[in-house]
């Protein structure tokens, strides 16, 4: 049996919440809300949380605890222990692959926040125009200096070192420090954003104008499929379901201890950070200084641009002291959101090596760090060529949907709802509403199937490079043609790398399975 354990129940809940809370809570959610009906977006969003998010949280927590009972701490053998058929362990490969591939690019993103904390303290953006601040980011990701590599390595070392200290000695302590600070920083920034007045420090609008822009509901939007798909997608990514990390954290919970209340507490904490704090910072400040039209234009390219290229400039308008404080708070908040998630990505990979190959915790942590270094290098070196986005699409989007869809079918239809319902309720400190038995069996799989089918055209387009080919056919400028060809080449290379990683993990699972058979450790 594993010697790893959680120190406290609160620590476990904060670690799970930290796993879910990520940069998307602050950068993706407000942009999604603006683009999908403003305040009305919250209706499909909360419906999807109730019908897909909460059921998936309970399913993943209970799958993890069930696997842990049999000494499994990663999805290949957790899934394997739930049915006699042998192929499930290869479906479980997604629960390691996704963590490896997402951590590979996510740690780079995390390192930007660390670097921007440093730039906020060293007053890099002082006296710069908005274009100059945006140019700093462009130069940064173009690797015009060694700085991005240095911060990336620091970030990798920090993650690896914390992971090497184990669950209670590393991950839990990081979450107990990171989550309260994140909420404190978020609350201070939200207060400053909401109370901002037109005319103060050059603001053209009050904070309430931005809030109104975000929350003013367009109720006609809730009748469109696009909005529901966006809401389902946001719930999916914000809760970190379909990754395998929830199962891993929950596998260290004993069967007599609660998972139902823990799952609710961690899940709702993520919602609090996303909806209450996430909606109250970036949009009110951006609209306050740039106006609604400019913000609408900027959100077309997602929230990253607003967060890294615009906000540092806007903080500068508040004077030197507040610029430093807000810069440190904003990028510090994003850093804590990032690191508590990336730590969760390390534990399933480590759990697998420790369970199957009897590696020590430190060795597993350093091996994970080394794997992320090698896998993440293309995203750092070829960021502008689209490798980062390619990893994000395949590992951070498609893989999650596929895995969650298959795992809920396994849980509700193969493992069976009778056993499944018992697992969810075992040791429970709350009464799980019986209606969720029906929802888990019928509604959630249908929603996931719908999300997956809706993604198929996009997947086909990606594989066939049809968007780039269309642009190539229309392009006449030699430079543009070269850029597009490069983008297609690097996109294909990134996909091959990811495929090789998946096959590599599948091979390790096969070796582990054979080893188990030789040792007489039957799996299911």
């Amino acid at each position: 049996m594993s010697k790893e354990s959680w120190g406290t129940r609160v620590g476990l809940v904060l670690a799970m919440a930290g796993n879910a809370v990520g940069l998307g809570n602050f950068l993706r959610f407000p942009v999604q809300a603006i683009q999908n009906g403003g305040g009305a977006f919250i209706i499909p969003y909360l419906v999807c949380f109730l019908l897909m998010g909460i059921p998936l949280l309970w399913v993943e927590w209970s799958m993890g605890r069930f696997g842990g009972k049999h000494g499994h701490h990663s999805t290949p053998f957790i899934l394997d222990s739930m049915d006699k058929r042998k192929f499930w362990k290869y479906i479980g490969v997604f629960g390691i692959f996704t963590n490896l591939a997402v951590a590979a690019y996510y740690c780079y993103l995390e390192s930007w926040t660390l670097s921007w904390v440093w730039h906020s303290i060293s007053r890099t953006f002082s006296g710069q125009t908005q274009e100059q601040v945006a140019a700093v980011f462009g130069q940064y990701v173009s690797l015009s200096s060694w700085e991005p590599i240095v911060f990336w390595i620091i970030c990798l070392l920090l993650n690896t070192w914390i992971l090497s200290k184990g669950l209670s000695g590393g991950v839990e302590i990081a979450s107990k420090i990171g989550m309260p600070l994140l909420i404190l920083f978020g609350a201070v920034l939200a207060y400053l954003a909401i109370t901002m007045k037109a005319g103060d420090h050059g603001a053209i609008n009050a904070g309430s104008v931005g809030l109104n822009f975000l929350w003013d509901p367009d109720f006609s939007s809730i009748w469109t499929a696009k909005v529901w798909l966006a809401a389902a997608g946001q719930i999916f990514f914000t809760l970190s379901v379909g990754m395998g990390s929830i199962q891993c954290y929950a596998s260290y919970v004993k069967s007599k201890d609660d998972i139902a209340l823990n799952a609710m507490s961690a899940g709702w904490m993520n919602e609090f950070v996303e909806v209450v704090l996430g909606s109250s910072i970036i949009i009110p400040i951006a609209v306050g200084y740039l106006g609604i039209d400019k913000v609408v234009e900027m959100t077309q390219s997602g929230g990253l641009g607003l967060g890294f290229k615009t906000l540092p400039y806007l903080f500068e308008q508040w004077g030197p002291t507040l610029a430093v404080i807000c810069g440190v708070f904003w990028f510090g908040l994003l850093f804590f959101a990032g690191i508590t998630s990336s730590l969760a990505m390390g534990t399933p990979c480590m759990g697998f090596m420790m369970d199957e190959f009897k590696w020590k915790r430190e060795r597993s942590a350093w091996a994970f760090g080394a794997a992320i270094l090698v896998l993440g290098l293309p995203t750092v070196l070829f960021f502008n060529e689209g490798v980062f986005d390619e990893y994000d699409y395949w590992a951070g989007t498609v893989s999650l949907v596929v895995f969650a869809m298959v795992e809920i079918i396994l849980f509700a239809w193969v493992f069976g709802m009778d056993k499944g319902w018992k697992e969810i309720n075992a040791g429970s400190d709350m009464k799980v509403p019986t209606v969720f038995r029906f929802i888990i069996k019928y509604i959630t799989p249908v929603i996931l199937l719908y999300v997956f089918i809706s993604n198929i055209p996009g997947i086909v387009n990606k594989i066939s490079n049809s968007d780039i080919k269309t642009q190539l056919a229309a392009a006449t400028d030699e430079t543009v043609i070269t850029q597009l060809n490069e983008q297609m080449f690097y996109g294909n290379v990134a996909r091959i790398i990811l495929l090789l990683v998946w096959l590599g993990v599948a091979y390790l699972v096969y070796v582990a399975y054979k080893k188990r058979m030789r040792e007489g450790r039957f799996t299911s």
Partner: protein
Amino acid sequence: MTSTALLMMVITEVIITAVTFYFFWKVLITPPRKEPDSYSENDDEKR
């Protein structure tokens, strides 16, 4: 802010905040199970 936007924001945020604090408060006040439980920090307590 328009009254619909304000209402939408206040209702949503109050509900989410209340539910979040309710569940977290329940986690805090629920007494731990008899040892051995899943958590190592109370392992030295009387069994």
